[in-house]
């Protein structure tokens, strides 16, 4: 019998424990304190931070913004992703080229993508320039300076960034549907909509679930685009939960309080992950 020494586990265990697990435990502990990051001493204040969260209008706004972005982006990338995937599935030899174009933004850093879109959507940017030129000057608006438009802009950017990824997931799902099922549907006189509705759709339910969960998970943690496009503003009206945590911690020195919000986000994400694991298990049966 070969002996594999436990030492093989040691380096990964040490790095993972020291730099991930210990900080997580630290965040749980800090969430019960009033530490401001500067003074040497701090007090354990029990559940005060968590109680404060209930009355925090700024946090409530961040939660609403996050949910809005999550809802808009998840619905759009999944509906549009599935739609394009079904079209692309019939594109024959061109599949690979088109797939590569749609997927490209997903490999670029979100910061670079945000700057591309900032140049398009800014008041002095490309889009307004085009409108002006085409004599559509009355349509010129500020896509970033007011809250409603800014949130929509953030959604558009995120949809553009992740659409190709979801499209590829759906394409892979669709390609696992056995050809015989479509043939059977044709024999029964089904048209292409009926093929989609009664063959493709039921067969890719696991794929849909995974894709939806992935987009929800990504958007619940949204930060980068907000940072570049609006910096949370105007005021703090476009802050997401992650943005709120980072600003409260590193901008306002409320380390204890921001840790409490982070713990709250942690439980939301864990809950979504548990749902995901359950779904994945079902798929394997």
């Amino acid at each position, binding site marked *: 019998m*070969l002996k*594999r020494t*436990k030492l*093989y*586990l040691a*380096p*990964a*265990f040490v*790095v*993972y424990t*020291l*730099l*991930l697990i*210990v*900080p*997580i435990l*630290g*965040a749980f502990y800090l969430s019960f304190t009033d530490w401001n990051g500067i003074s040497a001493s701090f007090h354990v204040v029990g559940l005060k931070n968590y109680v404060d969260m209930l009355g925090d209008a700024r946090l409530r706004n961040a939660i609403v913004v996050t949910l809005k972005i999550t809802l808009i982006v998840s619905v759009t990338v999944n509906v549009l992703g599935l739609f394009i995937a079904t*079209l692309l599935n019939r*594109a024959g030899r061109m599949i690979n080229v088109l797939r*590569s174009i749609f*997927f490209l*933004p997903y*490999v*670029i*850093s*979100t*910061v*670079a993508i945000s*700057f*591309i*879109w*900032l*140049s*398009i959507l800014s008041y*002095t940017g*490309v889009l307004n*320039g085009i409108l002006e030129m085409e004599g559509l000057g009355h349509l010129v608006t500020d896509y970033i300076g007011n809250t409603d438009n800014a949130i929509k802009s953030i959604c558009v950017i995120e949809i*553009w960034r992740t*659409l190709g*990824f979801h499209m*590829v*997931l759906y394409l892979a799902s669709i390609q696992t549907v056995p050809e015989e099922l479509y043939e059977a549907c044709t024999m029964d006189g089904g048209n292409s909509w009926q093929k989609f509705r009664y063959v493709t759709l039921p067969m890719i339910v696991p794929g849909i679930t*995974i894709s939806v969960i*992935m987009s929800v998970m990504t958007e*619940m943690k949204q*930060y*980068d685009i907000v*940072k*570049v496009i609006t910096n949370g503003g105007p005021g703090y009206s476009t802050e997401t939960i*992650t943005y709120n*945590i980072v600003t409260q*911690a590193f901008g306002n020195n409320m*380390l204890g309080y921001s*840790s409490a919000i*982070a*713990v709250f*986000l942690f439980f939301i*994400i864990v809950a979504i*992950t548990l749902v995901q694991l359950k779904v994945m298990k079902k798929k394997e049966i």
Partner: protein
Amino acid sequence: MKKVKPKSVVLWALLIAMVAVFALPLYITVVNIWKPTQQISSSPMSLPIPPIADNIMSVLNDPNVSILSMYRNSVLITVFGAGICMFLSSLAAYYLAREKNRLSKVLSLYFLFGLMVPYVIVYVPLVTMFNKVHLTGNLPGLILVFVSGSISFSVFMYQGFIGGISEELEEAAIIDGAGSFTIYARIVMPLVKPCTTTIAIFIGLSMWNDFLTPLLIGQVKTITVGIYTAIGPYASDWGTVFAYVMFATLPIVILYLAAQKQFISGLTTGAVKG
């Protein structure tokens, strides 16, 4: 059936229209790198004739900005971060996949836990710890942070993959007198190459593109943090912005075009499994 059906004409028109709209921001970026800023606002869609490299030169000649050192930081973080992470993780996963004991079971779950964590939770304690031991802004420290953040994913992937390969080759090697590390290095690792590719692309790209981690832990000027801070004062000088975007995306886009299949399958299987 080589007949062109009206249906497929509609299909193609629809697809081409969608690709065109989708690719528009990329087109705008590519053509406007080569125009002066006034021309960008007056005719953003025109081709840059003649192309002018002023934007790129002004970025390269800016005394406060060093694209080269940004590349250096990002390359070091990505290569060492992903490399160290994959070495530590595959070693641990080799033990976990082959030794069926209580320790294996407990540690598998322990490593898996990291996959659920929204990473933002670790920044405050991590920055505090780093300040205490004066590791802030230190590249090796930052690399270890990136390593720790990707161990869960890598261990999980390697464990599944190693668990799926038969032990016969390893048994043959034992009879030949090979030690367990030799077996790991000479037999197991070559067999799990596809898995290594997936992990390398998935965690490598996430390290290269990460913004928040190098920003908060010592403001290390990687390519993402670097262009973010460099653009700051020029935020409406679009020519300069496009030049920075080009520097930030070019290396990845070239790699992507050279290995599209690996990138797409690596990133999707990585995301679905992790």
